[in-house]
């Protein structure tokens, strides 16, 4: 009994004794006060509006207008001054007030006693910085460098100031980095080989297109604002063709939908090319003036590609291929949008090259309203000042070491001399979003310290030692551009940060300060600074000129959003490609250098193993971006559980009925979830949408292997993952 271990002392009565005991003085006297006299100037009923930028990894990267009443956000909507956002947000953006005021937010820095134990103690920011700084310095001493420290950060928040996390780690020395992207690498390499870099037309130009092919893209769910322009174009008479293995929401809106066998899109494009060549429908002049290697390419097509082969391969009947090829080749201009999903295959890069070639031979590249649109980065010319400080003197190692983000667990485990001992995770939830989560978990087990900065409790936070609470976009400043549209959006601080949350930039400064206190000179990152000054430092003269703005503050005062100069909104308008030859390269030596065929040839798709005959695709879901948004209560009220889509014919073979619980399994893992019987998916494929579901202890990645795409090293350092070449078996659970 506790009582026995203590000395019973003369009893003092009441509050005085209580306060004496706690050493605090009576509440309301010496104790720190929660309530203070009201500032005289305070009134209520004050309404203000602020501009924000949606920083999620989203095509639409909206300009947001936030209404704040008495310091509390009351409404969040689109900024009307942005002609792409058009004053409205997607369904996810409309939930932002709940994102900020969610009861699930992480509020304070905390330390977990025993990774995964759920035993958390609250610590101050100073304690958090001290623990982290000491560990960093200890590692540096023991291993002679900071290479055992690994950063895994990606796209949860694309605010330019969030690169402070990368900058802070570079400022302590050379570290290990999760490199690459699970997103677009194969396609970006493909466009890099063909044109020098991926560069897309302004999506507002869908209005100028005569013919639109959405190839493996589902903007109804992933880019609602683009879908508006597409629907407008349709109403004006533009034909919309959707090529996709699934009848997506976008395919449901098409004038013509073509169901292609997954991972054979390249064969379809090559079949169309064969028809176009045979019928002299290509743009000779364009090809002659602007490309190299077309003779070799044409020879390849004539020798290897037939329409019968293409029809057989893709499951699309020959007359359909012919008709679509003719329509596409004769429409001026014709616009292709290649979705990221289409290239998440072992032959994804090669397929994108074939589709690029289709656009090139028809002269659709460099034309307003045309193009072969995939992704772009023309507006990202910031200073990235937060990353500019360099390693401190005397830091060991010569350069950063990279592990592949797409095979993170295995590569962290394999890293040696020195091994990886500490992990910093920001803007990511690798334990839910990476393939083979069990391997990632093993990698975590090897760490001395795992630090995660996040908004909410998720699988990764659950398995961390220290969690740092971060701000939402509405509680910090920043600036954003998109990889799709041509706008730049300011992000103002609309409200005070709730609880003890801090932005990644403030965390970087705070940690640097602590490091320098303990060991002066150990971190080159500035230890203080006003975020408003930091954000101004991101704009250089080029970017100011491109957007016609004087400064961040100027833009803030004038509508919060600006569009880039028209001259860059038509990709390759000047036909000066950024390839070694300066031309469009059907024949790419660069591709050969990276071990690929120099021409856009068809490479074989991944074949289903016998035991696991069913393809399981995991495309993006309409209520979420990766692990964000779906868990908000407003969306949970609409759909609160994942499900798997199964074609009735397939369901029949296993006596599965709508709503039955189904087990999906392969050599990597398994999960059980309810079936939705629908003709929206083909009978050889099941679909489970990607995301993080609250209260659900599995993710679609439980069966996903770290199978590499064909490309990615050229532009992203690492290949991507063939997420959609995932094969499983299903049975009634």
């Amino acid at each position, binding site marked *: 009994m506790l009582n026995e271990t203590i000395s019973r002392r003369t009893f003092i*009565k009441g*509050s005085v004794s209580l306060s004496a005991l706690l050493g605090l003085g009576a*509440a*309301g006297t010496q104790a720190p006060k*929660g*309530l203070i006299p009201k500032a005289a100037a305070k009134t209520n009923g004050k309404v203000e509006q602020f501009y924000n930028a949606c920083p999620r990894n989203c095509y639409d990267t909206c300009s947001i207008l936030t209404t704040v009443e008495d310091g*509390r956000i009351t409404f969040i909507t689109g900024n009307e001054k942005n002609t792409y956002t058009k004053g409205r947000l997607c369904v996810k953006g409309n939930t932002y007030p709940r994102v900020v005021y969610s009861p699930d937010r*992480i509020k304070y820095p905390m330390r977990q006693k025993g990774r995964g134990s759920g035993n958390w103690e*609250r610590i101050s920011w100073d304690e958090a910085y001290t623990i982290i700084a000491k560990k960093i310095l200890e590692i540096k001493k023991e291993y002679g460098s900071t290479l055992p420290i690994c950063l895994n950060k990606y796209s949860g928040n694309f605010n330019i100031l969030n690169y402070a996390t990368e900058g802070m780690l570079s400022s302590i020395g050379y570290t290990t980095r999760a490199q690459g992207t699970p997103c677009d690498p194969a396609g970006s390499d493909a466009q890099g080989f063909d044109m020098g870099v991926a560069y897309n037309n302004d999506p507002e130009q869908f209005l100028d297109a005569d013919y639109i092919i959405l190839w493996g893209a589902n903007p109804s769910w992933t880019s609602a604002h683009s879908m508006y322009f597409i629907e407008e174009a349709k109403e004006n008479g533009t034909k919309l063709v959707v090529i996709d293995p699934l009848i997506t929401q976008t395919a449901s809106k098409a004038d013509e939908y073509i169901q292609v066998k997954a991972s054979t899109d390249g064969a379809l494009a090559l079949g169309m090319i064969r028809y176009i060549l045979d019928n002299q429908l290509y743009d000779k002049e364009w090809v002659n003036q602007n490309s190299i290697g077309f003779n070799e390419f044409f020879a390849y097509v004539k020798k290897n590609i037939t329409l019968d082969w293409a029809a057989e391969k893709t499951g699309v009947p020959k007359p359909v291929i012919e008709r679509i090829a003719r329509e596409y080749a004769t429409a001026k201009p014709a616009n292709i949008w290649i979705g990221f999903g289409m290239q998440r295959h072992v032959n994804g890069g090669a397929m994108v090259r074939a589709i690029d070639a289709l656009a090139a031979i028809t002269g659709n590249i460099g034309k307003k309203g045309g193009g072969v649109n995939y992704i772009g980065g023309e507006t990202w010319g910031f200073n990235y000042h937060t990353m500019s400080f360099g390693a401190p003197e005397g830091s060991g190692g010569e350069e950063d070491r990279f592990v592949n983000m797409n095979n993170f667990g295995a590569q962290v485990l394999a890293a040696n001399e020195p091994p990886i001992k500490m992990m910093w995770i920001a803007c990511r939830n690798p334990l839910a979003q990476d393939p083979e989560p069990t391997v990632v978990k093993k990698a975590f087990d090897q760490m001395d310290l795992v630090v995660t900065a996040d908004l909410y409790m998720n699988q990764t936070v659950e398995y961390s030692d220290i*969690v740092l609470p971060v701000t939402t976009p509405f509680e910090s400043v920043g600036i954003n551009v998109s990889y799709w549209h041509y706008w730049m959006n300011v992000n103002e601080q609309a409200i005070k940060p709730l609880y003890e949350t801090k932005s990644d930039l403030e965390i970087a400064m705070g940690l640097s300060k602590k490091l320098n206190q303990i060991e002066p000179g150990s971190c080159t990152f500035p230890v203080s600074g006003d975020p408003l000054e930091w954000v101004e430092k991101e704009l250089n003269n080029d970017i100011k000129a491109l957007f016609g703005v004087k400064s961040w503050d100027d833009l803030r005062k004038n509508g919060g959003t600006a569009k880039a100069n028209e001259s860059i909104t038509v990709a390759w308008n000047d036909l000066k490609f950024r390839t070694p030859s300066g031309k469009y390269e059907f024949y790419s030596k660069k591709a050969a250098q990276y071990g690929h065929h120099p021409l856009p040839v068809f490479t074989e798709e991944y074949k289903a193993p016998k035991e696991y005959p069913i393809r399981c695709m995991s495309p993006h879901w309409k209520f979420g971006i990766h692990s964000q948004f779906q868990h908000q209560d407003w969306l949970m009220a609409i759909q609160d559980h994942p499900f798997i889509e199964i074609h009735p014919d397939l369901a029949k073979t296993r006596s599965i009925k709508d709503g039955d619980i189904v087990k999906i399994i392969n050599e990597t893992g398994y999960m059980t979830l309810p079936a939705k019987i629908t003709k929206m998916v083909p009978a050889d494929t099941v679909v489970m949408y990607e995301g993080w579901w609250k209260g659900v202890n599995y993710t679609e990645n439980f069966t996903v292997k770290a199978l590499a795409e064909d490309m990615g090293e050229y532009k992203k350092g690492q290949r991507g993952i063939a997420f959609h070449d995932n094969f499983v078996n299903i049975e009634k659970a």
Partner: protein
Amino acid sequence: MNHSEIKHSCLEERMFMYQLFLHYYRGDLLKLPAAEWGKLLEILECQPALQSNDWGRKAVLQLQNMTTQTLEPFEYDFNRLFVGPNKLLASPFESSYQNFEGTVMQAETLKVRNFYYYEGLQVANEGGLPDDHIQFELEFILHLLSSEKKKEALHLFLEKHLLKWVDQHCARIEEHSQSLITLAFGYMLKGFILLEKSLIEGEGL
């Protein structure tokens, strides 16, 4: 004991209890060394407010069974209930109980803020912490208790705010608590709130 003395001691007891809960929710008890818990228990054992009802007695009884082992999970459990980083199992914010999901900083929060304003007070870190955190509500009540003139405001605040949600809060504690101490404080609060309710009803305000 004359009449005024009874009133006086009653007020003192109330202030003690509010102060106790204020300290508790502010986290002041988390770092209390094992030895000091015994002293705290002695103080609690002599509180008439606790001895006068079942919940209070139950709570004291619980605490009397406390061992050094029970102390360890106290902090973790306190955090699971009121601090995080997980979804709070017994949210300390009033507005969490006025909507299904426990969303904070809703209309109720501003009503609480206006109450503070009316008394010339505000949360020091206004906007940073929702105004309806139980810690602020308790501090506000202590402020109102300190003056006979504020009696009406006190009753209004209790009726419109604290008493309205604290039962649900206690129910969540009872449901989710895994530590003897958090449970005991849940019982204590529940019992004390019963007394407060009957007091207000008795005074017919």
